[in-house]
């Protein structure tokens, strides 16, 4: 017997009272301004409308049973404070499902407190969306029968935390399907979902890191493996020829680490970026795919959250580390797809595609210096029609992880500002202490450029023209323009 923890309703009250801002479910933009008053009136209703309660609190401040529970409680919170970003998942019964850090059993009281907050708000016919205390922001995403909570201590915007929570939710759906998730809790609302999730926590951990580091998450886009378009076409054609006749095959993807080499799809069906991100995360977090061809059910929430797709996953060959993913709705298709994959590899070997892929994987990525634009250090370029982005490798002065992460968060806030719901911006010019930033958007392109600190507005705007001209020449190898249907 060990661990005990207590989280009292009084803590809750204190916490809420300290808030500067709580967002309830109305229109986003308005909320942020009106939130404070809305909160205080509701909080009064919840806890302290009766003056006697106040009295009983102040009169009786004898510490609630000091000892063990308090100490353990504080230890847990000290642990939590040490990390910047937390994600918790719990059932609507208040049972823990996932925590990014620490042991969810020891935090059982904390999960109870989260439900209390959600439940109290629900009782007044409202939905709790977020709580702000200083730089700490707590975001709630209620996806009955589960609730996701994100805590960020670095003043991240609400939208981004909510999107991260949605990704985690989608990952859970991809493991269970929405139909099953609902059915499980419909039959037993006290179900401990960890039973079905054990082994999958790793995938969620990795996915959260992805949402913190990858520009594809911020830009809603994928990154492609750079290669001459003639080579890419030949590869795509080889896959297409073998797959187009297979009934119930819906999508095929060829992946090299974080990059897409090629995609094919069934007529009328398209693959959403968020689903591709889940597939990429699965592949890149699972070493065992490298050693054996695998057949795994995966639900793609944006495509159809009600059922499983079945994925045939295999690396092309010992000497070619590109991963082929064939997705079908038919669970009995393994041997047919296995056969197709074998033929694809053989054919690719004969027509030098394997070699082309290997060369593309080891090739030095396109360097920004080739564009020859004075003062330009780094950029993110998104082809909006294709939902694909390109970004050059970091160069000096972005030599350390911290510096790179800092730049990513600068990009991230620019991207949020450019894409704020209900408002479109065309240009942002921003002079910061360490760099000058320029964001620029048209119907087809979103461009985020990072310059040296003293670059003038004029100089930066001129760079746009030069860069877009250069990109026109290079884009054939940087993006996938040919996604054939069958």
């Amino acid at each position, binding site marked *: 017997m060990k661990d005990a923890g207590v*989280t009292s309703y009084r803590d809750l009250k204190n916490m809420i009272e300290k808030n500067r801002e709580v967002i309830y479910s109305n229109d986003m933009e308005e909320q942020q301004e009106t939130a404070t008053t809305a909160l205080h009136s509701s909080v009064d209703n919840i806890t302290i409308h009766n003056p006697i309660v106040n009295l009983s609190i102040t009169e009786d401040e004898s510490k609630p049973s000091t*000892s063990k529970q308090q100490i353990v409680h504080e230890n847990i919170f000290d642990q939590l404070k040490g990390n910047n970003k937390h994600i918790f998942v719990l059932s609507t019964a208040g049972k823990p499902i996932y925590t990014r850090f620490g042991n969810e059993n020891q935090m059982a009281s904390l999960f109870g407190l989260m439900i*209390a907050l959600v439940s109290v708000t629900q009782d007044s016919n409202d939905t709790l969306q977020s709580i702000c205390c200083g730089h700490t922001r707590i975001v709630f995403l209620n996806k009955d029968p589960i609730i996701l909570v994100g805590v960020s201590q670095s003043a991240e915007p609400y939208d981004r935390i909510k999107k991260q929570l949605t990704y985690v939710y989608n990952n859970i759906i991809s493991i269970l399907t929405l139909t099953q998730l609902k059915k499980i809790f419909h039959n037993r609302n006290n179900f401990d979902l960890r039973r079905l999730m054990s082994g999958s926590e790793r995938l969620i951990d990795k996915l959260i890191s992805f949402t913190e580091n990858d520009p594809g998450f911020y830009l809603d886009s994928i990154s492609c493996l750079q290669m001459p378009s003639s080579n890419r076409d030949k590869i795509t054609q080889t896959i297409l020829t073998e797959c187009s006749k297979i009934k119930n095959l819906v999508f095929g993807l060829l992946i090299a680490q974080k990059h897409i080499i090629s995609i094919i799809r*069934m007529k009328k069906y398209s693959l959403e970026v968020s689903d591709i991100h889940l597939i990429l995360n699965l592949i890149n977090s699972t070493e065992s795919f490298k050693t054996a061809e695998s057949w795994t059910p995966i639900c793609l929430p944006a495509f159809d959250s009600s059922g499983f797709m079945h994925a045939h996953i295999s690396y092309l060959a010992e000497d070619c580390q590109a991963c082929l993913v064939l997705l079908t709705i038919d669970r009995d298709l393994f041997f047919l797809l296995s056969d197709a994959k074998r033929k694809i590899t053989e054919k690719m070997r004969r027509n030098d595609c394997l070699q082309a892929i290997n060369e593309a994987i080891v090739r030095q990525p396109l360097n920004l210096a080739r564009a020859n634009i004075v003062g330009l250090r780094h950029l993110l370029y998104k082809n909006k029609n294709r939902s694909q982005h390109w970004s050059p490798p970091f160069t000096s002065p972005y030599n350390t992880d911290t510096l790179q992460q800092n730049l990513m968060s600068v990009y991230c806030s620019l991207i949020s500002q450019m894409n704020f719901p209900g408002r479109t911006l065309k240009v942002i010019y921003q002079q910061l202490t360490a760099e000058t930033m320029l964001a620029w958007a048209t119907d087809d392109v979103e461009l985020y450029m990072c310059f040296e600190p003293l670059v003038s507005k004029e100089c930066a705007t001129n760079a746009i023209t030069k860069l877009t001209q250069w990109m026109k020449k290079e884009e054939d190898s940087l993006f996938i323009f040919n996604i054939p249907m069958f």
Partner: protein
Amino acid sequence: MATRKKVLLKVIILGDSSVGKTSLMNQYINKKFTNQYKATIGADFLTKEVMVDDRIVTLQIWDTAGQERFQSLGVAFYRGADCCVLVFDVASPGSFKSLDGWRDEFLIQASPSNPDHFPFVVLGNKADLENRTVSTKRAQQWCQNKNGLPYFETSAKEATNVDQAFITIARNALAQDTDVELYNDFPEQIKLSGSTENRSSGSDNCAC
């Protein structure tokens, strides 16, 4: 069996105000007792790990407010409980009479799938007091009428029967926790009945 590793049980404590719900918790978890009375506002949450037979079980204990004016936590609060502990004060006939109400309230709010066999445990607290007015027999009778609920006479002050009561609570909740095969059937095959191309709510998120 992997599912044996982690078990977490949600235990709700109900009963009139000042019957000693919080004191029982305090005795159980901190081995402490105080005569001071302090109303619980809303709820307290406590966690304790216990060994039940050969399993490590985490009890997530939801100690609620007995006073009506502090009960404002909403329906969602009771949902998905694994066990409900009904507490009364053996020196307070009123708190004993209230048990029916607490039980009904719980069943309505939590709406467990099998209400007739939901694991309640009844605790007659303050058994150390000399002026008791609810006899053991009367309490046992009540429990008998409710499908034979387990009954313990406890004293949070003298730590009588507290550990035993909670072990029973954990064990009875666990017994309900049979592995219903509700997740073994595969969902039906996806039907390719339409197109997803126009479904993406006007966004540009299709990688094609």
